[in-house]
């Protein structure tokens, strides 16, 4: 198995974090993983993206110009990356911040989900990107929701442990959306 995904959005949306979580989960499952952030100028601000590869074989390139999946958390990201996705690939787009009309192709599987609303719905206002991650995992089965939960736990320790349930709820809400389209 081999999966690569580019996740992209605004700096504050927790893009690097969800990438990291996915990689961590893969690792917990004994798979090879790489996590590669993008980096801007020597300077603050702007957009962020990260490429995660999960595979049961030695991983070559940690970057790709032709990923199987893209998670786009805002308009500019969807604009930039939707065309990169391989035919038959997967696009997860956050319609709370991106217009679905941006995607002009029909050779891919696309999940248009209002991440912010979904997160708010489960009381996880700041975890919109977790819903996207949940949807992604649901669609691809790259890692189990369970491994993702463990990754979350290894991340949010001490004082932050209290945020675990909220994030798990967001992940599950996202997965549900992916399954049921709502």
């Amino acid at each position: 198995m081999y999966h690569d995904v580019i996740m992209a959005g605004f700096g504050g949306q927790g893009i690097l974090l969800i990438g990291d979580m996915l990689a961590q989960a893969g690792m917990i499952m004994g798979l090879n993983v790489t996590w590669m952030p993008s980096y801007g100028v020597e300077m603050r601000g702007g957009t962020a993206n990260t490429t995660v590869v999960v595979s049961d074989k030695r991983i070559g390139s940690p970057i790709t110009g032709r990923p199987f999946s893209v998670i786009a958390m805002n308009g500019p990201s969807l604009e930039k990356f939707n065309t990169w996705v391989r035919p038959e690939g997967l696009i997860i787009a956050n319609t709370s911040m991106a217009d679905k009309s941006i995607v002009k192709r029909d050779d891919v599987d696309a999940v248009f989900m209002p991440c912010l609303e979904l997160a708010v719905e489960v009381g996880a206002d700041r975890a919109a990107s977790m819903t996207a991650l949940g949807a992604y995992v649901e669609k691809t089965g790259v890692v189990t929701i369970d491994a993702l939960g463990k990754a979350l736990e290894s991340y949010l320790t001490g004082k932050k442990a209290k945020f675990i349930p909220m994030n798990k709820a967001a992940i599950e809400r996202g997965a549900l959306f992916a399954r049921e389209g709502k």
Partner: protein
Amino acid sequence: MTTEAKDKPKKVYGRPESLKDVGFHFCPGCNHGNVHKMVAEAIDEFGVREKTIGVAGVGCGVFLYNYIDIDVLEAPHGRACAEATGVSRVHPDHVVFTYQGDGDLAAIGIAETIHAANRGEHITVLFVNNTVYGMTGGQMAPTTLLGQKTTTSPYGREFMGEGYPIKMAEMLATLEGTAFVARVACNTPKNIMAAKRAIKKAFKMQIDKMGFTFVEILSACPTNWGMDAVTANKRVEEEMIPYFPLGILKERTTADYL
């Protein structure tokens, strides 16, 4: 005054002419923007846009050329005063200034700064002191205050081992080659007015061939200080100014060559 002037309010404050009409890349509340404005205002005031050459140090101010409508040279990190020396020796009748951060000028570039000052090069040095390496993500600078936490002084700067926040203006004022040395801030309208006066004075004295002129501008870096702009401005007032006192430290009244 015509009646028209009474009727229709006139623009009394706006974008200086030499400041290109583009937005800054700086973070919200970053004082680099204020300093850029002041430089443009000084250039406009003396009408020297066409004979001014700026030398940008490497730091958040490196994109000077995107904003000020003059010829600009990008110097290696810390060497702006050496570059400015070269430029000024070739064009002695031009206005030459450097724009440098505290990492740039007080750490890696301290030798070039001191020696350019000591030689009395006819240049103006604008020194944006924000107690941190802004561009590279908030590492400790020579001007970082004692106890200040940065990404490379995670336990707070200690004088034992890491040394004291260095006072560049004071040090340079001791050199015979400097004609004008001042420290200003951007945190209040009053301080901004004083800062403008100092920058203009420095340009004027350069134009009058009085020698090396230096203005240290205390500035906020909200991003790397981990504060919002308003709090950052308060920090300038409450922590920086007490350690780095404002004022004109030196002002020569007769030119060096007289």
